[in-house]
């Protein structure tokens, strides 16, 4: 657990931005990341009062404030059915409701956990991140090369297309061994696979062949690794099946 020597409450995002560029300064949103980290004592920089919270409709998009907790996302009535119901599906197994009441969307994105099912679902949905200095960027860009910036909001299309989500885990609240999310829009599939155990990545492929073929080829294109939960070999063997199930609409509540 991270030890904090000081807690700073910046008056503005600009002040927060400058503070976070200093050494040994760490962002505090829900406060759960610090439970897992180790290392030298640092200065905590509070962001909770500076960033938006809640899910709002903005035309054809949803705006999800960075301080929205995962439990809110999980239980939002508008997300219980339909193609966006893969978002609640992607957070439902994370530890327990008590913790999901603390973990923020901004923290989840910023932490970039390889086991994150949430990021896998967002990538398939082609979500965008609104950064303080950097403006609006595709989430994929942010994850691949995270700039020193503050995530303020996420943008998600309200009608992203035909979606699905599938994960394999051992215990119900365990991190996934492998997870896959899929989204079909205008003849193109976006397929994201995470917990490999590497950070989630997305591939696009045209919907011109049988789903099984696409799932097999696409599944084989992701690099897999060994960890305590499973071997790379096992992940490779099950990937086509779970990608296919995501493409078939598993995880969507109608």
């Amino acid at each position: 657990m991270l030890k904090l020597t000081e807690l700073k409450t910046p008056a503005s995002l600009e002040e927060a931005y400058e503070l976070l560029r200093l050494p040994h300064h760490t962002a505090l949103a829900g406060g759960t990341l610090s439970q897992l980290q180790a290392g030298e004592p640092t200065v905590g920089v509070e962001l909770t009062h500076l960033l938006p919270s809640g899910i709002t409709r903005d035309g054809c998009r949803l705006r999800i404030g960075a301080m929205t907790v995962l439990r809110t996302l999980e239980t939002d009535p508008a997300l219980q059915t339909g193609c966006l119901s893969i978002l609640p599906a992607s957070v439902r197994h994370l530890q327990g409701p008590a913790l999901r009441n603390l973990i923020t969307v901004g923290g989840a994105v910023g932490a970039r956990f390889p086991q994150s099912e949430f990021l896998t679902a967002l990538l398939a949905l082609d979500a965008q991140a609104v950064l303080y200095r950097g403006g609006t960027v595709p989430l994929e860009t942010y994850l691949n090369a995270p700039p020193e910036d503050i995530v303020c909001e996420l943008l998600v299309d309200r009608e992203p297309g035909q979606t699905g989500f599938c994960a394999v885990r051992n215990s119900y609240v365990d991190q996934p061994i492998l997870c896959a999310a899929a989204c079909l829009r205008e003849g193109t599939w976006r397929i994201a696979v995470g917990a490999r155990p590497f950070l989630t990545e997305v591939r696009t492929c045209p919907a011109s062949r049988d789903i099984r073929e696409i799932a097999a080829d696409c599944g084989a294109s992701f690099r897999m690794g060994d960890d305590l939960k499973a071997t790379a070999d096992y992940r490779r063997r099950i990937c086509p099946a779970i990608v296919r199930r995501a493409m078939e609409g598993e995880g969507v509540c109608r």
Partner: protein
Amino acid sequence: MIQKPVGKVDGMAACLGKPLYVEDFIPRNALRLKIVQSPHAFAYIEKIDTARALAVHGVVCVLTYEDVPQDHPITLAAEAAPEGSTHDRVILERTVRFVGEPVAVIVAETEEAAEAGARLVDVTYRLRTPHFDYETAIDDGIPLYGPGESFVHFDNGHVPERNIIARKDRVYQDVETVLADCDVVEDVTVHTQAQAHIQAETHRTYCYPDGRGRLVMITSCQSVFNTQRIITEGLGIPAYRLRVIKPKVGGAFGGKNTSYFEGLVAAAVLKTDRPCALVLSREESMTISNTRHAARSRIRLGASRDGTFRALDIDMLINGGAHGEHSFDVLNVGGGNTMPIYRCCEAERFTGRAAYTNLVPAGAFRGFGAPQVVYGLEGAVSDLAWKLGMDSSELRLKNIIHQGEKHPFLSGGVVNSSRLEELIRRGRELIGWEEEYPSHRVDDHTIQAVGMAIDMHGSGIGGLDSVNATVSLNYDGSFTLFAGACDLGTGGDTILLQIASQTLNVDMERVQIEVSDTKTTPYDKGAYASSTTYVTGNAVKDACEQMLRRIGETAQKLYGLEEPPHLSDGELLDGGGNRVDTLEEFSHKIASFSSAEQLTCTGAFKCPSAPPPYVAGFVKLRVDTETGKVTLLNYVAMVDCGTVINPNLARVQVEGGIAQCMGYALYEDMRFSKTGAMLSNDLQKYRIPCSMDVPPIQVEFLESFEPSGPYGAKSMGEVTFHTAAPAIREALLHATGCQLNTLPITPEKVLAALEEQKEKGGRLPC
């Protein structure tokens, strides 16, 4: 009072957060301890330099091997003397034999100072070559213990030069000859993993000097008397100088049946003459204290073509880790609490060995050797039924032992109480066996199946356990029951109160219980081997029966009656049913100037044999043939534990044991690095099942009457564990045709088995 669902006597207090646990007793001025752990799996400490640690503000002293006796190996296994475990420990070692073993202990004013000091202890090690594989450790590894470094009270098969901790052999007739003559022989080898207890409350101990040269210790343990004996022996002080008290414990499961930490805290108090406390983190509890023994069990079950068992040969090799506590007894239980569930074959044999390795030591854990063997034995029965094309429940019904029958490996020799046959028949109905057996396809990648397993265990340890209990009539007409027994969150205190009030024929409110204190309660072996209800319960019943006689005799004299009156519902009644006096008035009188005769009676029980309880477990599950993921749908547990003293507490024990074994079967995967460090050392990496993983568990009791038990009761604590894993194995056999012989059964292992079967040209059963 018995057979009633009475709530736990401390249940409401626990819910309301009253100060009941060890940590609640630690005062602010207590010194705090922090253990420095070895990073090496096998090393000799050439030098420990504590100068930098001592310079930290707040650090009072640092304990090392120089502070405790080194020449007299003890065992930390807190079971009754003479302890069968191989003695190979001292309180702080100069040779460390597993990664995580305590090297030094910082004693400081605050936890922060102790942690800071712990980082500054400089140790010079001379490394030795560790050995981690228990299957090759005997004869292949460098011996962990040299001459003089280990000791046994009686020959338990210990051969230190070969890294053999202990051995146990049981032989009945000539098993090889009979096996050779059998129509069919199932030969299956199973590997079961080490398991961590994961009690809600980790290990912690608080100890203080009483100002009169004695130490008072409040610790989370399973036996106050055995802890007292071991620690004083290890520190070279007389037993009367240490008082050990057990307060409320937040779970143990056997993990607190070994006194890993009490010696360190007592040594700190001896050195500083101040109160000292040690509270372990989850990681420390997991990496310093014991696991369940990992094991390889080979079962050869020979039968005739009609399914009659003719020969049973079990070879068990267990991984004792770096120290030998409990290994001998685990081998004992591995054969004694498993094989006698089936009618004695023409020949039977059990061969058990325990090996040293440079890993965290194994010790006591609910089931204590039986779960490992039952996984293999029931596995062999499942495989035999499958091969013969017989319903596996029918194969069991054909071969189980019945009441009145004998078995050479059974404690006491004969079964005096059993409804095992009915457990199987009734359990089948409840799970829907006939409709579901063996399996059917749900969709293109899901198969549903049922499986079952049976088990037995003991009630106490025959020929060894002995217990006293005392009951006193107080001047106000209430009773006090004094028992050294240890309630571990099991509800043992409540059970004893139920037995006492039943025997005394008074309301439970009239009886108070004082427990688990070496100074004020009589000797009790403690809570292990499923004994509180059966062993201590019998002693409590005896004490209360004596009390009734004493009350009668005393009242007869006091009131000048012809015959002793009897106690009924708080009143003394004569032969004609007329009231002589109230119990309260009688108690005032005998305590007063006219009598000066307060009544106190001590009861005893020596356990001649350990009558077995039985469980039949049935599981319904689904397996995903594309990913190997197993989902449990339903579990039925049929239990014969004799008379059920408290149906609510009994039910909770069953549910807990089954859930814990589901973890053993599917989720709990203990892993070590190549250098012997425990990788799965926290609750993120070592997963126990959560409530969403455990299916609805239906529990039913069929009460037999055990003549030697208190009101016919046997035991429950451990027998509830073993069935879930082999039942799941059997259901997966029925679903896939595959034998899953290595625990835990992860999705990866299931998928690998399915693919291997496909490569060999095999097909799914449905």
